């Protein structure tokens, strides 16, 4: 392979920063796993380790006015969308300074400022919401803004997936659906749960342009996303990309991972999106080993600062328990009007 024919021949800064992004997510989450072991983080914790190329590649293509929705496996998405490591870590610690004020935890990271709409833990439930956000952009004339909706392949079996695909196509809303197909929904393999395992075909059946790409290769992820977004931004309607990927860890920290052949896991680990991409960048002399070491170092520093801040942060006082259930409304007048012409008061004074 000659360097001039490589897809990495230009945009070296981009590729360097994408590698750095993946490393940030990896370091952050490996620390999360440790903190789970130390009982600092509780509840469900779903790690994205192995899948980082998808969020890193997609997020790098987004603008501030885009909206993002993700699943409960969303630490990386939030981080790369610009939610600070500190507020994410604090959220997982259940602290007041967390990005959801300690009400959400690992599965429910939210940040209005970066238009990060969760952190959604009902499989398939956020897909219709994404359609509505896209509809609002369309109706309000926020031209070029896109709603990006991440979900696992498990969601494809849910009715809400199908309703959302149909509505999105019918209304031509600017939504990019990003299916993270890691081949398992908890312990259920795609093959054992779907009659049709070509997921792009399902989306295409709703007249949504759809294709499948290698989600372990960030260059492919970036290329596919760039192409899809150009179309969606130009009023081309919704698009669907299936990213073929694999999670290296169990579904959650509760999962003993008994349903996968360890050889299968090892096989996929050979395709680690960070290691393979780092090697390519070194081979093509875009980064040096020292650059890469510095990326890990910086990521570790970021994560440790986040842990320290989360550790030191205050918890919400108990007397805020009932906050944020409903927001105060402007009071309207109360009018009593009896439809009766007479009352018993008049009959029996």
């Amino acid at each position, binding site marked *: 392979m000659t360097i001039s024919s490589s897809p990495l021949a230009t945009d070296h800064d981009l590729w360097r920063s994408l590698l750095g992004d993946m490393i940030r997510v990896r370091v952050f989450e490996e620390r999360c796993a440790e903190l789970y072991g130390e009982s600092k983080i509780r509840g469900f914790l779903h790690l994205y380790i192995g899948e980082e190329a998808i969020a890193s590649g997609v997020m790098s293509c987004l603008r501030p006015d885009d*909206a993002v929705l993700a699943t409960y496996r969303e630490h990386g998405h939030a981080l790369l969308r610009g939610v600070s490591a500190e507020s994410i870590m604090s959220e997982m610690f259940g602290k007041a300074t*967390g*990005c*959801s*004020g*300690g*009400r*959400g935890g690992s599965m*429910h990271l*939210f*940040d*209005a400022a970066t238009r990060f*709409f*969760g*952190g*959604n833990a*009902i499989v398939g*439930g*956020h*897909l*219709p*919401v994404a*359609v*509505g*956000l*896209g*509809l*609002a*952009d369309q*109706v*309000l004339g926020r031209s070029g803004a896109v*709603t990006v909706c991440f979900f696992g392949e498990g969601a494809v079996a849910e*009715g*809400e997936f199908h*309703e*959302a695909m*149909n*509505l999105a196509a*019918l209304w031509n809303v600017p939504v990019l659906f990003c299916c993270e197909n890691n081949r398992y929904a908890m312990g259920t393999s795609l093959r054992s749960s779907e009659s049709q395992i070509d997921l792009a075909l399902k989306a295409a059946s709703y007249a949504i342009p759809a294709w499948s790409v290698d989600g372990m290769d960030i260059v492919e992820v970036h290329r596919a996303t760039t192409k899809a977004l150009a179309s969606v931004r130009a009023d081309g309607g919704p698009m669907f990309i299936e990213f073929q990927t694999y999670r290296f860890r169990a579904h959650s920290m509760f999962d003993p991972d008994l349903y996968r052949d360890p050889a299968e896991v090892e096989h996929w680990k050979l395709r680690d999106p960070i290691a393979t991409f780092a090697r390519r960048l070194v081979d093509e002399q875009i980064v040096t080993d020292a650059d890469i070491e510095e990326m890990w170092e910086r990521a570790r520093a970021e994560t440790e600062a986040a842990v320290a801040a989360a550790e030191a942060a205050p918890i919400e006082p108990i007397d805020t328990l009932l*906050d*944020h*259930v*409903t*927001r*105060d*409304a402007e009071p*309207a*007048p*109360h*009018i*009593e*009007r*009896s*439809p*009766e012409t007479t*009352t*018993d*008061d008049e*009959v*029996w004074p």
Partner: protein
Amino acid sequence: MSSLDADTDERIDAEVVPSMTYREAMREALRDALATDDRVFIMGEDVADYGGTYAVTKGLYEEFGRDRVRNTPLSESGFVGAGIGAALGGLRPIVEIMTVNFSLLALDQVVNTAATLLHMSGGQLNVPLVIRTTTGAGRQLAAQHSHSLEGWFAHVPGLKVVAPATPEDARWMLPTALADPNPVIIFEHATLYNESGPVDPVLGPVDIDRAAVRRHGSDLTIVASAGMVSKALAAADLLSAAGMSAEVIDLRSLRPLDFDTMAASLARTSRALVVDEGWRTGGLSAEISAGLTERCFWSLDAPIARLASAEVPIPYAKHLETAAIPQIEDIVAAAHDLVGDR
């Protein structure tokens, strides 16, 4: 309505406050909302050219076009979820679900998303969504079109649940619901659409969190909502003829429940009968009864009485359906039992 001369008040009311049907009142509310706020749009199954299952949106599509009066496919979960997203994105959607029975297909969106987002996001994301749906039995539509499930929604923190029982509330609760930053579900009892009543055309938005005393009385308090209010008022007329004075409270809001108004009434009457078209077990009537007992136990002259629908899926045959849901005579009989005069 310029003259407020006390002597002529009643005459002015009679002359100036026009009467309209509950359906027309709701339609007027929708038209007004569409005309005054560009962010407002209606969506639901057959809300456009068909004019709405109960003809509530009839004519609005012609007037405002199909982007403002948007037909949806049969996808309750999908379009309620889209309503949530649209609300998050800055619009003010009014989602019509044909009946509460079909709302069960959207329960996930309502309960898991609309009601939780504000809290889960630590107060960042509110969902200003209005859902309108019909409820109730009485038209021989059998078990999949007749249930009163508003109590299920009233169970859920994060939602507001209202049930206009008069045309005036049908007209003036909607603007308040639309101005509310939270998800509001409006239950319209299907037997009310053809009922007429006075609707002040310039009244303006009214509160959606307080009960109203619809008739004053001194012997007992009848608490009712939605389709049961007119039955309770009719029963109160019959009771009055038999020498019993019933106060009738129209709940208006099912979440929050206005216990202050109910307790104030009980302080006068010492007896309460709760009439609910939902089922008794685990129902709204149980909640009201328990709440009133907690507040008023020492001033009660009798246990709180309840009248609810029979514990069956609502049957088709007229006589069976009638027997399954509280009727005027049932309310009269329950009132006599409660007051102990026979």
